[in-house]
């Protein structure tokens, strides 16, 4: 299959996520569980043959959510709740879960469990002190309880073999997506940032076994793919949740820039780390979620004020030949707001110019275009003078 055809299928899943999930249920008769944060241990859900899908926004004014979350809560989490309140999930979602993460999604989850009819819901206590060895032990215990709860709910015991299968599905998906990202290092990447991230969005919305098949075909097709476009400035996009396709397209199609790498929980941060197998499977999964690239909310230590995410971002920037970074953040997203002033200094001190943008459910494209265009000019300013 043509790369473009495969990527279009990913985009279809993203655009028609509900239709996909309903169809999946029809085909498999399995259960579908929505999760609101990427700290949800999908391995265990796959082990139980449950389809985990990420709850994403609809990029529309979340006016149904206002009576439950007033204006100061992040527009993305309000948009997610709004989708639920609109009944978009009513006829197929079997369960909803949230993990200890930001306060904003907790609001959305709290309201969801009260007002959106969903048969099963689960609060998963994901520890915050991910750099403390204590967290790994605690998380393994939490996973055991989670596994038990699912067994009680589905009436099926989850064997070690099942868990191995779950881990394998997730790891394969992570490995394949990382291989696709490799192509973005090329001078003229055969895949745009918009396409690459759409691929990740699809992975969060569809059966990863099916996604893996698409990825394998994509990896075969990419070497021969030549895009008829000017790469322009090699950009990195960093920050909180981002599935704002119009913005990405504006930068890559209208302006002369290409996102060659991202650091989002709807992008690389989601799949960068694999589970390292060990005898105690749940412990292996626990280690993965403690050692993964952290959400800023969990990026702090027990010795000093260092962060682990910053060096990782810099490494990505260097590996992918980044000329400039666009730091985005959902309005009111504290975890990222708390890191951005430091991150900006860190990257600029390391020679990577940054520009900051605040996202909402719909971004004012007119306002943002001038900013990004000027930022691209700033990066290539020398060309105007020699």
């Amino acid at each position, binding site marked *: 299959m043509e790369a473009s055809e495969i990527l279009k299928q990913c985009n279809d899943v993203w655009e028609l996520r509900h239709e996909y999930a309903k169809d999946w249920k029809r085909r498999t008769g399995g259960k579908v569980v929505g999760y609101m944060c990427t700290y949800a241990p999908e391995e265990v859900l796959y082990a139980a043959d449950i389809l985990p899908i990420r709850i994403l926004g609809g990029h529309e004014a979340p006016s149904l959510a206002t009576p439950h979350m007033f204006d100061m*809560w992040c527009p993305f989490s309000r948009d997610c709740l709004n989708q639920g309140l609109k009944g978009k999930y009513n006829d197929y979602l079997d369960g909803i879960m949230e993990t200890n993460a930001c306060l904003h999604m907790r609001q959305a989850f709290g309201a969801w469990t009260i007002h959106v009819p969903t048969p099963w819901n689960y609060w998963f206590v994901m520890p915050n002190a991910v750099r403390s060895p204590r967290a790994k032990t605690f998380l393994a215990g939490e996973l055991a309880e989670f596994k038990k709860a699912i067994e009680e709910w589905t009436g099926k015991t989850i064997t070690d073999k099942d868990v191995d299968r779950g881990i394998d599905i997730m790891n394969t998906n992570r490995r394949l997506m990382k291989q696709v990202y490799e192509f973005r290092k090329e001078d003229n990447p055969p895949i745009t940032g918009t396409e690459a991230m759409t691929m990740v969005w699809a992975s969060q919305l569809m059966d990863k076994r099916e996604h893996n098949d698409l990825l394998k075909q994509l990896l075969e097709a990419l070497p021969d793919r030549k895009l008829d476009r000017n790469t322009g400035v090699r950009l990195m996009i960093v920050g909180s949740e981002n599935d704002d396709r119009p913005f990405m397209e504006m930068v890559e199609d209208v302006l002369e820039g290409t996102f060659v790498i991202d650091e989002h929980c709807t992008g690389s941060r989601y799949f960068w780390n694999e589970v390292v197998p060990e005898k105690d499977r749940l412990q292996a999964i626990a280690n993965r979620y403690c050692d993964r690239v952290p959400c800023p909310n969990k990026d702090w230590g027990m010795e000093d004020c260092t962060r682990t995410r910053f060096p990782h971002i810099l490494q990505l920037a260097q590996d992918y030949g980044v000329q400039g970074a666009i730091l985005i953040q959902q309005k009111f997203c504290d975890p990222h707001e708390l890191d951005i002033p430091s991150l900006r200094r860190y990257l600029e001190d390391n020679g990577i110019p940054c520009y900051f943008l605040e996202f909402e459910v719909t971004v004012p494209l007119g306002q943002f275009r001038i900013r990004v265009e000027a930022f691209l000019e700033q990066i290539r300013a020398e060309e105007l003078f020699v």
Partner: protein
Amino acid sequence: MAKYKTKGLDCWGRAKELRMKYYQDYKEAHDRGALRWEGGAWTFDALPQALEGEVHSLTEEPYGASVGANPEVQVRYQEAAEGKWGCARDLCAYLRNYWGSIVLDEYFFGGKWPKADFIFQNHICCAHAKWLQVAAELEGGDVPFFCFDVGAGAYDKIGERQINYVVEQLYDGIEFLERATGRKVSDEKLIQNVQNTYRSACYWAKTCELNQAIPAPLDEKTMFSLYVLGTLEKSTSAIADFYEKELYPEVKDRVANKIAAVGDEQCRVLGDTQPPWGFLSIFRYLEKYGVVSIASLYTFSLIGWWEIDEQGKIVPYPTLEEQGITIKDRDQALRLLAEGELKGKLMWAPFYGAKYKNDIVTKIAKQWKCDAAILHLNRGCEGTAQHQMELKIALQNMKLPVMTFEGNMADEREFDEARTKRFMDLFLTETLGLKKVAD
């Protein structure tokens, strides 16, 4: 002529004195060869306070609030944080006051910013660990930093596994302290501090429980200035004594003699979250209608420990004496500390879901006989403002009239006093049908 007799608190002056001494001690600590550490109001201060020799802390939220109560200073600090440091304007208002204070190298209680010897934080909301992580950066990046994770689950889900998670961290914390300061943690002091922590937390709860009386012996505006001590150094004898031996007996006496906080009490209001500190005058405004704010999950359990009894009632958490416990060793002390904090602090329950907050707060509304609720939709603190709109719905479902107003506990740029009073007029006169009783 007022309905009830009323008078100020005898222990008021003592409370003020303890507070000012606290901020002075931190400032002068180094001159006296004492150690200085920064941490949150909810951190396990029993540990660093158990280090050998003299040790003083600066808790970040009360500091941010002190600044917030002075709009001119607050705006200057926050604009420094937003301008010079470049942080978002919608972050926690206390945090911006705190960062701005460091950026300007200005200690609100006089002199330059007193840099800490170490940081001993605990992570409650999205901001806490990051708050002092950045503070440490601003202070030069070389301040030893330790932070607890207490997000182990809601009070009703706390078992051995959850307690162990925190106890293990407490042991790590002690190692960190001894490594970072070169001083030893004394078990004798530690045990003493844990006992004090229990006294502070349990006796504050007992005091709040007395507010179920009609007329209420205390109004929230006054309680704000009383629980604050527990957010400073809950593990010291001075403060534990204040709660157990001064405040509690006095309030008990007020109830016995029907001494009211507000003489014209005719409508008992339930509150939520911190008020706009610079504008406590809105409470005086309510008093003109005989309306008195007497209860809130926030005021009760920010430092108070509680539990839900068999009848589903909210009652103060038992003291060590009531549990018949005398602490023998370090391990027992640490376990009791973790247990009380995880099980007793109902304020944490909302972090695990709207249902928890609704359940607890509707109980409070009933037990404390509230006639209405006035909720401050607090843009300044996401932690305490969680699920406020859900709470509004839950309270209205129990037929309690509810008014909300948007504001910010410590960013006067986000609070409109005149406008808020306009809403209060509307709510009090139209919805509650009250008339002014005083001018």
